[in-house]
């Protein structure tokens, strides 16, 4: 065990020597159980069989797979990102830690090496999780490893488990809501996910319950050449409240990895869901080699009146991000929020934003997106605000600001605004600028080094978003930003 741990650490050291500042670039040496590379109907059946799924689940997967494999169904090309074509037959669609095949029932049964891995992530399952009052569902290479804090949740009637467990134990809920927000035919990657998703998190908050603790999932891709396809479904029933946190990391690989997740949120009347993401997938090295392709579909539906869905995301990782957490504002007086900080450095590319679809009366949405580009990074804010004819008195406020660090990067803003109701009020504003010379000068003449000064200014630029994050996450986000920016200035 000791030698193992040392080996892991030494590999970490080597990787640092290699070049990167990516601190999470270790691989955990666990026996992986992987299905051979490639995707076919048999693979879909095999995934389903391995998870001992009921017939309806298999049918849904097959329906998705058949839709996906149609000739005319191709990858979306409209995003402002460039990458070599993905060979969908050259990757593993299922990889599970072998020890998890038996399904660990408690933390004690979890492979200590996995636990150590999470310890390294700064998200210790055992001690700190309890202190922080966070229930963690850790998903390692698509399979849920453990869910802590189960007892307290059960007392409140909250269901929080892996998607596999939910399919076994709560098939009625899963059947009712799965695909209700992101239909299987929604887009290329969502369809792929519907066919091959291996695990993910499921949460159901019963009517009137305020979830006593924050729910959290940690995602990690471990196996090489594998794609991660997790599926998350959160349902907040009438008057319920839940705050959900999500973190992601991946080891350093020379080849790129695909991550195509789907997240669905459903908020019934008077319910509120707060969804926070800290995305730190491996961004590739300084020459733009490797890194995760993060092609994710996230969407929430404010199904009932007076409901609220709030997305907060800090995106510092991934070679390519393609992600638009959206809210369908169906219920009257419902509220949608999107707060985002996206940072690109080196050769990272991000095309991210949100969609706010106003359908109900007096629905309100707020979008605040902050983009930071450094190195050769290119990022695009792409957002849609749609006010349907039925959305009387709808309001939207959008602000997207971009900060440019260095003269090789780019920042782009592509908002789509569609207004079909005259009583709607919508405002959009955006600015793009570099770090102010005056501010830098001021800080530097107070004796602050140029790098620290840059970081202070950038941190201030993002402050409004960090405030939306739960406290521990906000601290981590700030650190993450600092690490991601190291070496770009000064």
């Amino acid at each position, binding site marked *: 065990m000791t030698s193992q741990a040392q080996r892991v650490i030494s590999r970490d050291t080597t990787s640092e020597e290699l070049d990167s500042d990516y601190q999470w670039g270790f691989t955990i040496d666990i026996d992986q159980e992987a299905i051979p590379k490639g995707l076919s109907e048999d693979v879909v059946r095999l995934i389903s069989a391995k998870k001992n799924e009921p017939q309806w689940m298999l049918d849904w997967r097959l329906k998705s797979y058949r839709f996906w494999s149609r000739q005319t169904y191709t990858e979306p090309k409209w995003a402002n990102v460039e990458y070599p074509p993905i060979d969908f037959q050259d990757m593993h669609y299922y990889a599970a830690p072998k020890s998890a095949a038996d399904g660990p029932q408690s933390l004690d049964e979890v492979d200590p090496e996995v636990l150590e891995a999470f310890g390294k992530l700064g998200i210790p399952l055992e001690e700190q999780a309890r202190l922080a009052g966070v229930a963690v569902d850790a998903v390692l290479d698509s399979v849920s490893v453990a869910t802590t804090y189960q007892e307290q949740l059960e007392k409140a009637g909250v269901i929080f488990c892996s998607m596999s467990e939910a399919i076994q134990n709560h098939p009625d809920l899963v059947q009712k809501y799965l695909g209700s927000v992101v239909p299987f035919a929604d887009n290329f990657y969502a369809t792929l996910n519907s066919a091959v998703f291996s695990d993910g998190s499921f949460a159901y908050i019963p009517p009137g319950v305020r979830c006593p603790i924050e729910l959290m999932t940690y995602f990690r891709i471990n196996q090489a050449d594998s794609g991660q396809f997790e599926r998350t479904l959160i349902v907040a029933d009438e008057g319920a409240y839940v705050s959900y946190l999500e973190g992601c990391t991946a080891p350093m690989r020379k080849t790129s990895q695909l991550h195509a997740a789907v997240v669905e949120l459903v908020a019934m009347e008077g319910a509120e869901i707060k969804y926070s993401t800290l995305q730190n997938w491996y961004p590739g090295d300084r020459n733009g080699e490797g890194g995760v392709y993060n092609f994710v579909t996230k969407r929430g539906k404010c199904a009932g009146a007076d409901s609220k869905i709030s997305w907060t995301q800090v995106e510092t990782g991934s070679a390519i991000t393609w992600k638009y957490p959206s809210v369908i504002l169906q219920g009257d007086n419902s509220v949608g929020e999107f707060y985002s900080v996206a940072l690109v450095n080196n050769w990272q590319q991000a095309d991210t934003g949100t969609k706010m679809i106003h359908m109900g*009366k007096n629905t309100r949405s707020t979008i605040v997106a902050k983009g930071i580009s450094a190195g050769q990074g290119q990022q695009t804010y792409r957002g849609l605000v749609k006010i349907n004819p039925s959305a009387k008195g709808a309001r939207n406020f959008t602000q997207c600001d971009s900060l440019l660090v260095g003269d090789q990067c*780019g920042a782009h803003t592509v908002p789509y*605004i569609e*207004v079909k109701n005259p009583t709607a*009020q919508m405002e959009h504003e955006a600015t*793009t600028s570099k770090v102010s010379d005056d501010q830098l000068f001021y800080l530097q003449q107070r004796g602050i080094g140029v790098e620290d000064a840059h970081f202070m200014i950038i941190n201030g630029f993002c402050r409004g978003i960090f405030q939306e994050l739960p406290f521990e996450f906000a601290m981590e986000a700030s650190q993450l930003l600092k690490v991601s920016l190291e070496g770009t200035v000064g």
Partner: protein
Amino acid sequence: MTTIAPRSVADDFPNYVEAYAAQVGSAVPAIQQLRERGWEAFNRLGLPTARRGNEPWKYTNAGPIARVSFAHGDHASGGEAEPTQADARAAAPWQSDWRNLVIVDGAFAPSLSTVNGDSPGIAAGLADALLANLELGSTVLGSLAPPDEDGFAALNTAFAGDGVGVSVPPGADAGVINVVYLTTGRGQPRATHPRLVISAAPNSRVTVIETFVGPDVRYLTNAVMETSVGEGARVEHYRLLLEGQEAYHVGVSRVLQQKDSAFSSVAIAHGAELGRNDFGVTLAGTGAECTLNGLYLTNGTQHIDNYINIDHAEPYGTSRLFYKGILDGHSRAVFGGNVTVRKHAQKTDAQQTDKNLLLSEEAEVDSKPSLLIYADDVKCGHGATAGHIDEDTVFYMRSRGLDLATTSRILIHAFASEIIDTVALEPLREYLDERFRNAIPSASIALPIGGRS
């Protein structure tokens, strides 16, 4: 095993194939070559009718234009009288001290114009423009709005025949040139493909007005404008889309600015069933200034699309893009603004704004003000708004004793004035102000006062 013959444009547009074949070859080889280039491009591109993956036409369906079999060629006698100068004067802004040129159904009409084709610096008829050696042929004509990228520009080029060429010598002030494109109801549905080519030499000045008018019948105006603004030159441009109620209008305008030049444009859209103003400016010299203002007033089932591109290719450029719209009835307006700042174009200062006033439950606005920035030392911003007249403002005015009808007229007029006031040419400003004042939807507007229901 059957092989499918490659799709030819002829399958979709037999009328254009026929008209192109019937077109009399131009005596000027350069024009003939240009037409061939245009036709080749059109055969490759067709019209931009694709509904998927066609970002420049995302919110506007070119299908209705593609489906009509428009006629070309000489005026078929429709029983209508030949238009007179009085008709042109009534339909468009006109001053006797301007140089007024009238284009009737795509052909220059000297008898209706106040200048001949050989007025200094002006050549009417593109062939003449080339023959008069206005240096438009090689550098501007067909190169600023190349046919190779856009189906409508290609079509216009394939039928290049008549139009206006303006060449302003270095340091000269060419005054006001007023071009009136008058379409008659003869031989409808008719398509015309007029072209305006302007070359402003270094440190010269010119003001150009383009007005598109016609009867309330179906026809297509497919216009192209190309302007080269030389170093230190100033060009003031006005584009008045005042087509008839059933008309289709597609305008492709391209401007190339050199160092320290200034280009300003006010584009007005008040007319046409389906109108598109595709306006592109490239700031190809340092310190260039570009101001594009626009105002669109839509009603009925009108569809107006403003597709504006500003490309900052060199440092120290300034651009101001400001469009406003007033939408009533079942109408729909589209604003697609793209400001690009190239890697090299440091110290760029670009602002982009689109504001919309929706007066009816059925009106729709789709606004897409994008910024693409590849340089770091820039100051760029954009803003867009859509909504109704501010309730508090209405309340204030009513509390001063103004009735609802007067209040709404004053407020809508004020909204439009912000753009009309940017018209520097006084007689034109007065003309537009009066036109808009008369066109403002009257008391029928139901303002949502007293809370939203």
